[in-house]
């Protein structure tokens, strides 16, 4: 493509009063030979936008540099179709935070412009990646309540569905359920499983595989090849996206010996209680007599660091439901509920009220000891937190332990992914398949594979249904984005993808190991085999590659490197240091914008370069910058560690590890290691950001100027 560059400088919003616009224009026309360079006092107004549109349509301008406000605003206005465009921020980063008419202010604006124009020079228009034989089928693994709802949701939206269930019947745990509590949470409702199954079976878009398992899933979104084994034979189907709804299992009560489980026959779990209720009468397992005095122990192993540290959110409701079974069997029966906190979220509080009204006795406290007499009657000593006394519950027929939910993903790999990084979905410390749960709760770390229902998070059936519908929508988003060659999430709409110059690959495996999403497989010679539809376009592979062979059309090692080289570095005698801030575009850049909107002054010696993720930062940029005479480099990214906020899971962590190793490079250049720093910042830290920047700049000023200036 022959590029015809048009540079448009806005002078509104205080930019014109702050900067020498003619000097800016000279940068475009003299240094970069821009054939078109115009200014406007209100570029985002109708007149300004029409001016640009006329140039694109009439004058053949196809490469646009909009020198105005932050790219995070007015993106709907500055939309000129399929042209190359870059936004240079001289408002939030310059005019609003630096003194007007100052020499340093002008230098910063000019450098921002240079970097933007170099970026355009080094970019080419993206060509979407088109995979072949794309499928729009949704695979649902697990035919329980969540799986059935997800299947029906996707099918009714018009997508073919394969529903794979390992048991002979659909329904999952619902097959064991006696009654359901569901909105409006006033009374017990029938389970209605048959109706659910009929709805699935009647749906022509759904193909059901029962007594079946997933042998293997290869490929990526749009081109997953799924091998399903059923009755000893296996078939391979191509699907577009996958939902894992394999559900939960009860926490192993054998670990709860301190509550009497396994020691006393009349201590059972809530799951055993449910099965007993379904089979008829609620009785004492020891002698089969009807249970008249029943104690429920809530949080049996839950919210306990030694067992399940989390709250399963459903056990309270389950015990309230089962208390109602006891009361329905005999209204005079005594039902005790020993609890830490009763958690009945949203409208299910109504059911709590109902059980209170029915005469359930709620005791807040903890069990101290449980014992049994010769007739197998149980007796419990508990500390009552509200009475601040030790209390005794005597002659109990039955003690029910409300055990929590454990995701099946903790030790099963239902999907058997053919990924270099393992067959299962990566899980968090509690065993739930995790991703950035703060920002993207539906996502897993495998693109196009979503979890729904209790494998994602413990939840009751009503929420399960919503969760399943949400997952179905996510699969559709994935299928349709993949079909047009766009990234799915979180860079929705990004048409670029990483390209590997394989002739220079040294098979070092860094990209295949470090990709947070397992997008890159390996052949037997350790050559990377990218599955581009799995890619989330974070650029972590680009940051990892020591040979710098991975590039995007509008984002590459060469591009950022050239931008850094485009910065003018004054001589050491001028006492104007230069520090490069590589800022993550997800959180740090918006925080910087907010600091600008709040007019918090920043140091004029910074040069900000926005990166897709700190994971994409290649060490060569740091080396280039320091070798050019830049005095310091600061990396601003998201929080790492256990409660990370990195949008690409591991990017900021990888960047941190890489920077720890950079002291070697600095040593070779005979430079101080303090010249490079990594800082964590979250999107709402706009007030902390200038403090961090000032602090780093103060440290840099203490050091001697970089001796490589002028070389």
């Amino acid at each position, binding site marked *: 493509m022959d590029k015809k560059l048009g540079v448009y400088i806005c002078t509104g919003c205080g930019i014109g009063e702050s900067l020498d616009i003619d000097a800016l224009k000279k940068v475009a026309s003299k240094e970069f030979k821009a054939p078109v360079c115009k200014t406007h006092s209100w570029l985002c107004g109708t007149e300004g936008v029409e001016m640009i549109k006329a140039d694109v349509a009439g004058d053949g301008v196809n490469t646009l540099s909009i020198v105005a406000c932050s790219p995070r605003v007015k993106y709907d206005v500055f939309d000129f179709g399929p042209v190359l465009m870059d936004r240079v921020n001289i408002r939030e980063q310059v005019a609003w935070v630096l003194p007007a008419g100052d020499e340093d202010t002008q230098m910063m604006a000019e450098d921002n412009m240079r970097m933007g124009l170099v970026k355009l020079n080094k970019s080419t228009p993206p060509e979407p990646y088109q995979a072949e034989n794309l499928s729009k089928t949704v695979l649902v693994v697990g035919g329980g309540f969540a799986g059935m709802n997800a299947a029906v949701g996707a099918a009714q939206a018009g997508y073919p569905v394969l529903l794979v269930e390992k048991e002979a019947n659909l329904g999952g745990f619902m097959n064991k359920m006696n009654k359901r509590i569901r909105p409006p949470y006033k009374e017990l409702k029938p389970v209605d499983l048959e109706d659910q199954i009929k709805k699935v079976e009647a749906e022509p878009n759904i193909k059901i595989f029962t007594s079946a398992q997933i042998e293997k899933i290869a490929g990526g979104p749009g081109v997953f090849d799924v091998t399903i084994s059923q009755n000893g034979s296996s078939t391979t189907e191509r699907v577009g996206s996958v939902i894992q709804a394999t559900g939960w299992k009860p926490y192993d009560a054998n670990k709860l010996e301190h509550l009497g489980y396994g020691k006393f026959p009349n201590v059972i779990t809530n799951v055993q209680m449910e099965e007993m209720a379904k089979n008829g009468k609620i009785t004492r397992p020891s002698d089969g007599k009807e249970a008249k005095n029943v104690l429920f122990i809530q949080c049996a192993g839950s919210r306990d660091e030694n067992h399940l540290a989390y709250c399963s959110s459903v056990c309270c409701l389950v015990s309230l439901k089962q208390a109602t079974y006891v009361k329905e069997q005999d209204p005079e029966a005594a039902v005790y509920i020993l609890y830490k906190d009763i958690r009945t979220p949203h409208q299910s509080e109504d059911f*709590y009220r109902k059980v209170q*009204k029915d005469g359930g*006795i709620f005791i*807040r406290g903890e069990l101290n000891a449980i*014992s*049994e*007499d010769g007739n197998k009657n149980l007796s419990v000593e508990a500390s009552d937190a509200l009475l601040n006394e030790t*209390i*005794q519950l005597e002659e109990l027929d039955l003690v029910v332990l409300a055990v929590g939910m454990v995701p099946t993903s903790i030790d099963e790999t239902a999907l058997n992914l053919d990924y270099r990084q393992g067959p299962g979905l990566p899980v968090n410390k509690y065993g739930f398949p995790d991703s950035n749960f703060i920002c993207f709760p539906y996502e897993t770390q495998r693109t196009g594979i979503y979890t729904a229902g209790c494998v994602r998070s413990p939840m009751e059936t009503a929420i399960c249904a919503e969760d399943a519908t949400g997952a179905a929508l996510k699969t559709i988003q994935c299928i349709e984005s993949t079909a047009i060659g766009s990234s799915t999430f979180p860079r929705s709409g990004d048409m670029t993808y990483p390209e590997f110059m394989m002739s220079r690959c040294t098979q070092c495996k860094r990209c295949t190991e470090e990709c947070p999403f397992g997008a890159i497989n390996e052949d037997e010679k350790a050559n990377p085999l990218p599955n581009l539809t799995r890619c989330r376009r974070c650029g972590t592979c680009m940051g990892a590659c020591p040979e710098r062979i991975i590039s995007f059309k509008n984002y590459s090692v060469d591009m950022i490197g050239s931008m850094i080289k485009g910065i003018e570095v004054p001589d050491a005698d001028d006492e104007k240091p230069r520090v490069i801030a590589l800022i993550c575009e997800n959180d740090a850049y918006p925080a910087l914008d907010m600091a600008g909107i709040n007019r918090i002054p920043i140091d004029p010696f910074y040069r900000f370069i926005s990166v897709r993720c700190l994971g994409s930062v290649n060490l060569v940029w740091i080396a280039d910058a320091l070798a050019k005479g830049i005095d310091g480099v600061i990396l601003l990214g998201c929080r790492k560690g256990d409660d990370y906020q990195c949008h690409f899971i591991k990017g900021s962590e990888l960047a941190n590890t890489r920077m720890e190793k950079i002291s070697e490079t600095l040593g070779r250049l005979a430079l101080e290691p303090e010249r490079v720093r990594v800082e964590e910042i979250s999107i709402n830290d706009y007030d902390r950001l200038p403090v961090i920047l000032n602090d780093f700049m103060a440290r840099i000023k203490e050091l001697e100027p970089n001796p490589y200036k002028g070389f």
Partner: protein
Amino acid sequence: MDQVVGPKYGSRGGAGKAYNQSFAREVYRNVDSGEEIKMCMQCGVCAASCPLKEKMDFSPRKIFTLIRAGQREKVLSSQAIMLCTSCYSCKVRCPRKVPVVDVMHGLAHYALRQGYKPRAETALFGQKFWGNIYRLGRIDEKDVALRYFLGHGLGQGIKLMMENKNMGIGMLWYKRMKILPERPIKNVKSLRKMLDKAKAMGKGGAV
């Protein structure tokens, strides 16, 4: 021999007070609004709202949990049930709409009927006050005071009267109290009929 497990080895029927529901059932049956305490979720808003909390041995919240734990003696001899001044802060604020004030008064009356006198003074004053209302349909301050003082016995009564003499004179001087006896309100018999009916409808507590 009994088998016992648990972090702290309690003996059966030993360390703690046994929970039983008989007192709770007694309260549900016999105390005005007694059944409403089933709905209490022990949040403590009543206790935090109560201006007399400092004077109470048990907060309303704790009274309710004691009832549910079956601790009859503690509840019926508690000072707290006699101390409620009907400010209604608790009743207005209760998220479970428990009519705390009504329950506290109901419990006070029930305790008196059962022969408990947690605060005899308060009970005596309440009875004389109520007697006045029933007889006159209004309050005659000197009459209530007189009956209350003499309720302590003749000698003690005269002593109390002398102690409060100055306040009485002050009230007369500022016309807060008449020298002549108050007359009953118009048609006081109809009021008594209403009060009798209300009493018959309730569970034995005055309103």
